[in-house]
């Protein structure tokens, strides 16, 4: 039945994963029972055969690469856990949270804020692991060179500029920068004409380069990778960097262990992630040196700030 | 449309040999009436009449006239002569078929062409009105020493309004003489040949 989802997401695996016979059987009417068995997975009746582990990711950085390379993660996971693994790309933050709640996704790579949202809406969800860099993640404030601002730690100078965040519920592109702005005495919603929401870190860079917005903020990891790749317009200048905070993490759904038939799923996932050898393609894909364990309490501050800024209800 | 053979001369000029501007000038000297089908029903009568002067007007003046009708006295005078002065500001589509035909003639009157081509201008009219219309049609051209060329089916109208008659059957000229010299036998023979 995962095939159906793959067809929806239009991924390259659409054909190979979907046995034509099952579709025909569906059309013939036998599918009613089949579908009932599958969709009933959230109900009390446990399926007789273990289902696949459904992995998803929110599109924060280069979703296009994520989509192409996540196959590697799925394969590695599948080999290590000996369960079938399916990757479902999702284009929308809110959709990822909702799909985690409905049980359509078992294991999701969430940002700090979206992870908190998903955990609050899905009782029993547990954080599994995060990257070493996520323990002390930062955001970078950038300004257009025409503003003439020299790098500084004084965020108050930004208050008078046209300013754009990234995606609305991005931790590194919205939540934490807004928090540090407020700490510095700048109203995070108060820029001239109101703040913009570019939708992605790359769009933030392009908009600040164009000068339509004079300043913006983005994920430090993306900033570094774009700077190293020479993809940053010279009109964009680094202005300040935030203090560190805890960000991305893997979150496991409450029904995953039961559904996949692996009772100690969380521990085995943690073992898999923390046991990845240096230089493994998975680590490379995530731009990390290692994965480390993470607790729900590591994101208490994010939850608090989210409530404070009205992003967690 | 270029002729397949020979040349066409209109008012002494060969349209195919003229530049765009010259051809437009030539066209302005020729007025045509096709059973009122050339009118724009959504426009007010005054604009439909004024359309006769589009050849002289600049684009800006043409556009402005749709807001504030230009040269109103001439338009009203022309409409007066076709008996429609009181309908000048109605939408043309609200008029009857006969009235619309007279609007088309009013357009011709403001255009002041040297040559008028009229295709069966009398076919939808009662006899009294048909006489009236033909008299009006001839006026603008005749006043300037030009001509009215018209297709008619009623020999009576031909005798009363025309100077020369040309009979066509299957694309050939089978009859061509002054109306004064037209005899009943000519007509009988012509209609016999045309059948």
């Amino acid at each position, binding site marked *: 039945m995962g095939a*159906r989802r793959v067809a929806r997401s239009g991924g390259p695996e659409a054909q190979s994963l979907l046995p034509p016979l099952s579709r025909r059987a569906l059309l013939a009417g036998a599918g009613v029972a089949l579908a009932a068995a599958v969709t009933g997975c959230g109900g009390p009746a446990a399926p007789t055969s273990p289902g696949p582990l459904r992995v998803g990711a929110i599109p924060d950085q280069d979703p296009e690469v994520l989509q192409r390379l996540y196959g590697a993660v799925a394969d590695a996971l599948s080999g290590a856990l000996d369960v079938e693994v399916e990757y479902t790309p999702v284009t*929308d933050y809110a959709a990822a949270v909702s799909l985690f709640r409905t049980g359509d996704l078992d294991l999701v790579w969430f940002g700090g804020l979206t992870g908190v949202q998903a955990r609050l809406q899905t009782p029993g969800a547990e954080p599994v692991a995060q990257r070493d860099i996520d323990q002390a993640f930062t955001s970078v404030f950038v300004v257009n060179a025409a503003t003439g601002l020299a790098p500084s730690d004084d965020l108050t100078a930004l208050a008078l500029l046209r300013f754009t965040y990234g995606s609305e519920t991005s931790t590194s592109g919205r939540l934490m920068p807004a928090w540090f702005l407020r700490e510095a005495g700048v109203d995070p919603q108060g820029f001239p004409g109101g703040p913009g929401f570019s939708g992605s870190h790359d769009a933030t860079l392009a908009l600040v380069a164009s000068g339509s917005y004079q300043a913006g903020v983005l994920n430090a990891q993306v900033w570094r990778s774009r700077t190293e790749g020479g993809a940053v317009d010279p009109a964009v200048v680094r202005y300040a960097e935030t203090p560190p905070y805890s960000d991305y993490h893997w979150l496991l759904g409450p029904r995953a262990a039961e559904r996949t038939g692996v009772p100690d799923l969380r521990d085995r996932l943690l073992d898999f992630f923390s046991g990845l050898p240096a230089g493994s393609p998975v680590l490379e894909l995530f731009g990390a040196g290692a994965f480390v364990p993470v607790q729900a309490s590591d994101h208490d501050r994010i939850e608090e700030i989210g409530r404070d800024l009205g992003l967690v209800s | 449309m270029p002729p397949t053979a020979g040349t066409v001369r209109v008012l002494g000029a060969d349209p195919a040999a003229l530049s765009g501007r010259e051809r437009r000038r030539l066209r302005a000297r020729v007025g045509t009436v096709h059973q009122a089908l050339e009118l724009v029903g959504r426009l007010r009568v005054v604009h439909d009449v004024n359309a006769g002067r589009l050849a002289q007007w600049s684009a800006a003046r043409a556009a402005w006239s749709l807001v504030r009708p230009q040269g109103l006295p001439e338009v009203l005078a022309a409409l007066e002569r076709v008996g429609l002065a009181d309908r000048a500001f109605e939408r043309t589509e609200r008029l009857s078929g006969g009235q619309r035909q007279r609007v088309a003639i009013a357009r011709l009157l403001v255009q002041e062409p040297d040559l008028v081509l009229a295709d069966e201008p009398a076919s939808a009219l009662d006899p009294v009105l048909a006489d009236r219309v033909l008299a009006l049609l001839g006026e603008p051209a005749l006043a300037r020493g030009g001509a009215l060329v018209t297709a008619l089916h009623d020999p009576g109208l031909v005798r009363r309004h025309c100077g020369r008659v040309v009979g066509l059957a299957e694309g050939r000229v089978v009859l061509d003489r002054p109306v004064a010299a037209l005899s009943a036998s000519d007509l009988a023979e012509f209609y016999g040949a045309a059948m």
Partner: protein
Amino acid sequence: MTAVLDRAAAPPVLRRDRRRWAWGVGAAAVLLWSLAGAGLFSGDVVNPGGTAQFGRFASAALSPALDAQFLGVLARSALVTVAYAAAGTALALLLGAAGAALVSRTTWGRRRAGWLAARGVLAVPRGLHEAVWGLLLVNVLGLDPWVGVLAIGLPYGAVTAKVFADLVDEVPRGAYRALRAAGAGRPAAALYGLLPPAAGGLLSYALYRLECAVRSAVVLGMVGAGGLGYQLALSFASLRWEQVWSAVYALSLLCLVADVAGRAVRRRLAAPPPSSRRDPVLTATVAGTVVLVGWSCWYLALSPASLVSERTAAQLAHVWGAAWPPATDGDLLRTIGVLAVDTVQMSVVAIAVALLGAVLLAGPAARPAGRSSSGRRVVGALVRGGLLLLRAVPPPVWALVLLFVLMPGVLPGALALGVYTLGVLGRLAAEATEELDPRPRAALTALGARPVGAWLYGVLPLAAGPVLAYALYRWEVAIRDTVLVGLLGAGGLGALLASELATFDWAAATTVLAAVVVLTWLVDLVSDRARAALR
């Protein structure tokens, strides 16, 4: 007659049609107010510094990504998009046919209150954009393919019901009354007396909806339902313009196929071949459509069971519990009021831009009747292709690239919608121009009028009515589309809705959605009155 001719007439006066005059002045005032709201008369609106960013987007149009792997992904995605469009349209037609019976005047007869109530009910599904439906349905159905099918089928079904009802209501009543008088029941009389004369219009509209559904399926993909739109959203998020253009071209191709097929069928319907036998082309179209829909249901693995499963019921209860009752705190209502004004201004500017562009481009875009020079044909094809691209690039993409060269505010969103709507309206205007009587213009050319003069007097007065009517109809659509631009961040009620949905404040989201529905309904009312004044 002579008496009339000789009558001395009182000098006539130019009397404007007061109602139309009032509508015209009102429209001009609203436009000025909207332009002022968009900041056109206060300070800089253009940002020349962003031309390089815009240029990168534009020049990528000439070098789309063509590597085999990406094209393969696009081809498979296109299949998903087609499947969603076909299944969604099929559902819309079923709902529309059933709904039409409920909202047609024929059903209600003189019971006007019932008729108005039925129409009011339809305004709810119609007032929400497909993307909004998609986001709501994801929360209930999760990753089930029904999300995409329902997100297209529900709003389209409501629009189709209204249009079908209008088409059936416009059929002359004679045959129907005769059947009723002969003792036939209402349904039977409608089946024999009303449906056959309306069938052509119904089929033609159904095909038009299919083309719209392809574009909607792409927008749905952008919010996560798979297909071309999903690929487009991925490439868009990392600003890979070469890939974005490849997806746009693929979408244009799909739209073109739907458009050409629809045009062929419409032409067949307008001038059926003189034979008593069934028209093979039409039969093949209907059969092909049925096969396409069957394939789509199979390809998407649609199963009716998941609509009524226990999980769906539980999720529906969850969402309903969170969303009801709607939030009514004063702050939220005030914000909605302010943003509703933004939304209206945005839609007005968008329609004005689209209308201006459509009027200018309709002439060149229309296929000339009869013979024409090859230069004229090339220009026509180019303009039509350009309009196709304008509507194939989704409004959120337009919004971002216009934001490169314009200052932030309502204007980039409004122009993004305007450009997109121009793509749709320009085509409709060109078709309206093609259907005009060519004789008045020919006559004006014959009396020596300049091309501009002939156009002003022979085309504009005739085309203005239908084109304005289309523009007013698209105004209502534009209100819904502002939500789409807003969803991806360009202001108005859409931006508020996006933020309520992102923070899972369902009660507030319900209030915003209700405001959008009411706004759409009000605009529908105004545009309906305006259309009546035009007639």
